[in-house]
């Protein structure tokens, strides 16, 4: 007797997709639970962490989550694959150093300004490849971090190979831990929301078929610029935050690890879901920190994990969980 597995939506899922979501408490809880509970857990994490070391790991995971979120947003919206997330991170990090050390701004203003100015700088740098499609974006983003670190090395600007030291720390440990978690929650929910607005739908359409969108009389370059600006603001914030966390910024802000780990986080958690990369970061970053003794061998592991997952299990954790939460499976006879 031949059988196959059939998946159908749960009744409560079908109801809560619609206006009936408001019909009963159960439907509302069904919708709220997967959003509220993980957010609460995230906010409780620093309180649950047994030592300052674990609190630092949580903050780092949140920073990588922001980078992975920015990567996934670019991929999900305009279909651009970035091989140089460290560009955003490094630009943000160095700007924070310049604003704080050279211009003497307070961490709060330096963070805000480096996010904004970083977004502008990265967008201007990437602008030449935006009117094109295909692999141009991947190639250009791959080249930039290498180039910027070479320029800094060659000219000795911004502290050269020594980096910028003496960046002010955050006011206190609570600000240090909760600011990034707040921004992470805000960014992931607002970016997911953004993608279901008209603006976001246009962005996704550009990712699917740019020529058709262009034929509708929409200026796609303008939309691509906004998507890159949003993604680079998120990445630059993470870089600037990192500088204040370690009171230092150096050439390591452009390192390859910062480009490959966010992609690995996004693939583990589920590409094109925006929330998946955050989950991926909170799984991979603690593992990576635990294996710090292995040095660069860690990069070998993430890269192999990344290639293996893309080839054999491209679904990602979040898509798996979502399927289990929304659908029932049963065997039916064919």
């Amino acid at each position, binding site marked *: 007797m031949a059988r196959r597995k059939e998946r159908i939506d749960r009744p409560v899922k079908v109801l809560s997709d619609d206006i009936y979501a408001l019909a009963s408490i159960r439907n509302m809880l069904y919708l709220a639970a997967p959003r509220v509970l993980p957010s609460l857990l995230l906010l409780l994490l620093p309180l649950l962490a047994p030592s300052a070391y674990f609190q630092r790991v949580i903050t780092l995971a949140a920073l990588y989550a922001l980078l992975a979120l920015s990567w996934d947003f670019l991929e999900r919206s305009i279909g651009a694959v970035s091989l140089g997330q460290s560009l955003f991170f490094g630009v943000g990090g160095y700007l924070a150093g310049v604003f704080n050390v050279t211009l003497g701004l307070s961490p709060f203003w330096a963070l805000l300004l480096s996010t904004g100015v970083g977004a502008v700088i990265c967008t201007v740098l990437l602008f*030449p490849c935006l009117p094109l499609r295909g692999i141009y974006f991947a190639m250009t983003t791959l080249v930039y971090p290498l180039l910027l670190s070479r320029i800094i090395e060659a000219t000795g600007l911004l502290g050269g190979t020594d980096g910028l030291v003496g960046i002010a720390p955050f006011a206190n440990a609570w600000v240090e831990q909760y600011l990034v978690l707040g921004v992470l929650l805000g960014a992931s929910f607002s970016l997911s929301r953004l993608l279901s607005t008209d603006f976001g739908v246009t962005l996704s359409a550009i990712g699917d078929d740019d020529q058709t969108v262009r034929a509708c009389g929409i200026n796609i370059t303008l939309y691509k610029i906004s998507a890159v600006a949003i993604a680079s603001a998120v990445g630059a914030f993470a870089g600037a935050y990192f500088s204040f966390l370690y009171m230092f910024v150096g050439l390591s802000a452009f390192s390859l690890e910062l480009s490959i780990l966010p992609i690995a986080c996004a693939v583990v958690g589920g590409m094109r879901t925006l929330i998946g990369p955050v989950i991926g970061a909170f799984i991979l970053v603690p593992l990576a920190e635990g294996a710090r003794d292995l040095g660069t061998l860690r990069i070998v592991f993430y890269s192999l994990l990344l290639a293996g997952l893309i080839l054999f299990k491209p679904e990602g954790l979040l898509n798996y969980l979502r399927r289990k939460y929304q659908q029932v499976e049963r065997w039916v006879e064919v």
Partner: protein
Amino acid sequence: MVLPLLIYGLINGSILALTALGFSLTYGISRVANFAYGALYVLAGFSAWFFLNRLKLSLFLSLLLSILLIGLIGAALYRIALIRVRGMPTSEIIVTFALGTAALEALRFFGFLGSHYTLPAFYSGALPVFGVPVDYQRLFIVILGAVLFLALWIFTHHTKTGLAMRAIAQDEQAAMMAGIDSDFMATLSVGLGAGLAALAAGILLPLSYIATESGSNILVYAIAVCIVGGLESTTGVLVASLLIGYAQMLSVIYLGPHYQMIVALLAILVTLILRPSGIFGKHKELEERV
């Protein structure tokens, strides 16, 4: 001042052409952007070093074996990995980039990279060319570059396999109707590209040594040459390498050695702004300039 510039610019251009040829060939035929290209180059250098110094084979045999080995690795990369994600550019890019990074970082971790890992020159010594001393290895690079271009041109225009490759590059659907196996051609193109990377490693490494940085440098230079010349044009590779080669020599003479990489990137940016499909990428212009 002018004569050394002319001669060393030509040499530098030939070096760039040799580096970029494999990347351009693979992309031109199968539309696979092989971001593991730099890693294949470094692996080739290391395997040639291993055959030469550990297995005590002759230089010629070591180079031949390393070209074969890396060519097979490239073909396997397509057969085992890329074939599963063919036609999904995001996945293709991530897989090649991740595998390349894994190979480079593994070599770095085990300490197989550094100044004593280098290959010997074929003949040491130098020859004056119009009064400028040029060592034999650099002369050989120019000659081999020219021979390679000629051989590739004959291969793609006068052999059945070469013609089939061009057919796939021009119109995959029509070529498949004519009985050309698209997957076989793609395997061949990735393998051939990897083999060319290995060949480049064999002749270029005697000028420096094997380092992780050379992996990323090679990839960046290959990308620069391919964008400036037009992503799938072999003539473009030649012209773009000479252009960038001379520009780099000028920057070295007037600014300093650190600016070579910056020149390559500026070339990419200027090309993307002024003529996005590259100097010789004519027929694709409308499709690319969205």
